[in-house]
């Protein structure tokens, strides 16, 4: 990807600090409307482009799943509005397009995430881009915004939701999709629609009011409503931007009510604005190398390390033991019944790696669940918690895989933290190849390469629709 030319800013704004006149939401709103592309460091824009490309790939990969496709056809039609239903020759309104694209985006559980909130116990990381990208894209398409406007909205939108996430702690039973990252979606949409600081503030607070209470249980049970959470969150963010335009009003301290009590028992508003405009949260996320729950990644990576060093015929595997941290150890289902269930199963993900040498999108699609070789290995994999591993979170998320063959050999491999995050980012080539593997089956080789090229120069593109017209199957 071509890099964006960095224009070094001459002045640095001081950070907005909450005081008697301003609260954290005021500061976030000011930041959201006043940040300019020129203010953003080169590496931040590079992250934004990679996150954007990666999200387009996972949306396309999810868009062809039957339920996502049925939903797309119900809520979109040819010429049905200004916004693209990605992966289909269908268009729709801003609200319907965000609902559909946000749902497709999480289908493969291959989408990128943010770092989890600090503190113990470890909480699942939230996934800003699957909420943010569909809303920003729809808002930008609807008014033919430039690539530069779009990219800036991505960076500031990411920050708003992510920072509220870092300043609070969702109740552990709540699945983070559909919660605070709808605020990312809302602020990005409002920014693209030219909101001033007052409307931005109302938009942010209204989005705080439109949080759903999604249960994590659906992921454990492999129930597909879990894939709708991000779609609803993205849509709710877009709706918040519209309600603000219609003069609906929020509470004076919506953040305090919702994130300091109802869905999060703890809130530190100061933390939401810490180093605002200096540290960009979009650089603090991870891009997934494997199409499974992030908690499973260290185990999968350890398995990858193990078979690279000791290639083992899957038929020779007698037993595998995975010792890992608490959250990962709870993903212990050896016989997942649905594609989503497989993504939340460490045995399945590790077995896929041991059998196929890969844990990408195809290892978890419904058809893969019938792969007898993976099934045979998965039932031989036992997952256990190592309390020392749990104690090491969230700084480390260790996993140790021990494999015993029928011939009595024992191999072990260990990973302290999985790749893809800020400390061990995927190479750009890996991100591009991941994109290709997801996009090519949907839009073909030529268009996929064209998308990669356009996203590389997104800051110079006059109209975002130059990109979105490439996101539907060729010849349609």
């Amino acid at each position, binding site marked *: 990807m071509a890099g964006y030319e960095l224009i070094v800013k001459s002045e640095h704004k001081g950070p907005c600090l909450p005081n008697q006149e301003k609260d954290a939401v005021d500061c976030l709103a000011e930041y959201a409307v006043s940040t300019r592309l020129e203010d953003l460091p080169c590496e931040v824009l590079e992250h934004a482009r990679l996150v954007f490309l990666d999200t387009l790939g996972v949306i396309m990969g999810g868009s062809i799943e039957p339920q996502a496709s049925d939903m797309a056809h119900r809520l979109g039609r040819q010429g049905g509005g200004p916004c693209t239903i990605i992966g289909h020759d269908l268009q729709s309104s801003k609200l*319907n397009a965000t609902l559909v694209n946000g749902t497709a985006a999480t289908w493969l559980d291959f989408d990128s995430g943010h770092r989890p909130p600090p503190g113990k116990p470890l909480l699942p990381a939230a996934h800003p881009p699957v909420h943010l990208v569909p809303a920003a894209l729809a808002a930008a398409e609807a008014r033919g915004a430039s690539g530069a406007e779009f990219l800036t909205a991505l960076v500031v939108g990411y920050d708003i939701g992510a920072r509220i996430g870092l300043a609070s702690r969702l109740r552990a039973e709540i699945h983070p999709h559909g919660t605070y990252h709808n605020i990312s979606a809302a602020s990005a949409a409002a920014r693209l629609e030219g909101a001033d600081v007052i409307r931005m503030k109302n938009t942010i607070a209204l989005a705080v009011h439109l949080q759903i209470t999604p249960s994590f249980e659906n992921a454990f049970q492999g129930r597909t409503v879990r894939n709708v959470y991000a779609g609803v969150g993205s849509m709710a963010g877009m709706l918040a931007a519209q309600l603000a335009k219609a003069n609906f009003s929020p509470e004076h301290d919506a953040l305090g009510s919702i994130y300091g009590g109802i869905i999060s028992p703890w809130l530190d508003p100061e933390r939401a604005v810490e180093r605002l405009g200096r540290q960009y949260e979009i650089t603090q996320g991870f891009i997934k190398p494997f199409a499974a729950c992030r908690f499973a990644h260290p185990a999968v990576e350890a398995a990858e390390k193990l078979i690279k060093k000791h290639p083992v015929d899957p038929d020779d595997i007698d037993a595998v033991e995975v010792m890992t941290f608490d959250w990962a150890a709870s993903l212990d289902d050896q016989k997942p019944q649905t594609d989503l269930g497989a993504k939340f199963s460490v045995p399945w993900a590790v077995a896929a790696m041991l059998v196929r040498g890969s844990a990408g999108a195809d290892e978890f699609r419904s058809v893969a669940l019938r792969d007898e070789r993976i099934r045979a290995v998965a039932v031989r994999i036992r997952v256990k918690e190592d309390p020392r591993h749990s104690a090491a979170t969230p700084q480390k998320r260790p996993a140790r895989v021990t494999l015993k063959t029928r011939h009595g050999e024992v191999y072990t491999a260990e990973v302290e933290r999985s790749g893809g995050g800020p400390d061990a980012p995927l190479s750009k080539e890996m991100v591009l190849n991941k994109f290709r593997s997801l996009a090519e089956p949907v839009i073909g080789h030529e268009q996929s390469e064209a998308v990669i090229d356009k996203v590389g120069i997104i800051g110079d593109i006059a109209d975002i629709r130059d990109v979105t017209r490439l996101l539907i199957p060729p010849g349609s």
Partner: protein
Amino acid sequence: MMQPNEQSDDFLNALTGFVTSITLDRIPSSVVKTGRRVLVDTTGVILAAMDEPQIQTLAGQMADASTAPCSSILGSHQQADAMWAALVHGTAGVWHELDGGHRFSGGHPAIYAMAAGLAVAERQAVSGRQLLEAIIAGYEVAARVGLATTLRPGMDTHGSWPALAAATAAGLLMGYDRSRLRETLNVFTSLNLASSNRTAYEGATVRNAYAGFGAAMGVLAADLVNDGFTGERDGISTIFGNIAGVFLDAEKILEDLGERWEIERGYFRIHACARCIHPALDALISISKAHDFLPEEIERLDVRTYSLAATLNDAAPQNPLAARFSLPHALASYLVLRATGVANYSQKALQDDKIRALARRIAVNADRGMTRRTPAQRPASVRVVLRDGKTLEASAALASGEYDHSPFGDEELSKKFLSLASDPLGKQKATDLLDKLWHFDTVADIAEESHLFTK
């Protein structure tokens, strides 16, 4: 780990099994009559807000948002996707605080059943009978879950469990059997809103959008099941027992199922303000009917009531929604305007110096004994002290409009309907619609009659 979603012996199966078997000819005629009353009342209440500028903007936005606009937005000339029409209906329906409720669960299932029901019924081109059945069933499911649920402190019911009425009505109107209806409820629960009750006290109008959002999520849940989406085995217990709620008393859900109909235990409102204020308002009305005095003659006014009502004590509400949740404003505006309707909560009334001055002389106190008598009773007593030293007193154990306390007759509901619907629809159209609504079970295809509901 996945097991069949049919759990033959749990409450969800019993509840969904019961409501899928509801037909007008097999349920008590009194229930059918109440269903018609809810239909009439709720339609009027939605129409009443359709000319509000924010609702008109929202209706335009939702019509624009629609790709398959098959559902009329009541009181407008626009069509929308059923989900988005439901959003407008729900938001409008709670705008004036005139929608009916259910005192035992503390929520308002009727508006959700109607907001979603009408939109889906038109799309599916079903009969008036089917809509009535769906409303009765939706009310039953939501109110029973509400009876069993203790929400987290600070949460509002709007956007939460009452929206199960929308999900149920939508699913039944799409012809769902027990297992698909069960799936719909389990899909809905994770789309439940984390709503805050401070919105109402502060007059944050997003509170009105809560109801619209909940109704829309009910429709979405039913549509998602049709797309093949699935939900967890028992989302009611997960969400209302542990996430949005802190405790679910599941036994209450099936208590006297089929014997006691929750829609029959609902109330209707004629005063356009929060239900908790009504007992005090009724007491004041009885005083002022029995004695002649002018607002200027009042030295002060003391109200004692149950704790929840006593929290609504803001004497200087900043906007119309906050005024609808202000006991002092409600009482003062009645004394000055001699009415208790929509106009009492207009910007004009909020700025009325007489009302403002009087509101400041109203003291509200919680009474422990009264609090203990809820929800069987929701008591209030009012004492007016006149400048000449005379003291006038009255009390009410419950507000009027309850099924078991000063219920409103059909004529009163008709009168309310016409007062609300005549402006948005015109007098003749409102009268025609009212007549049709009282005989709605004879309508063969709602889609053919949708013009009656629109401008």
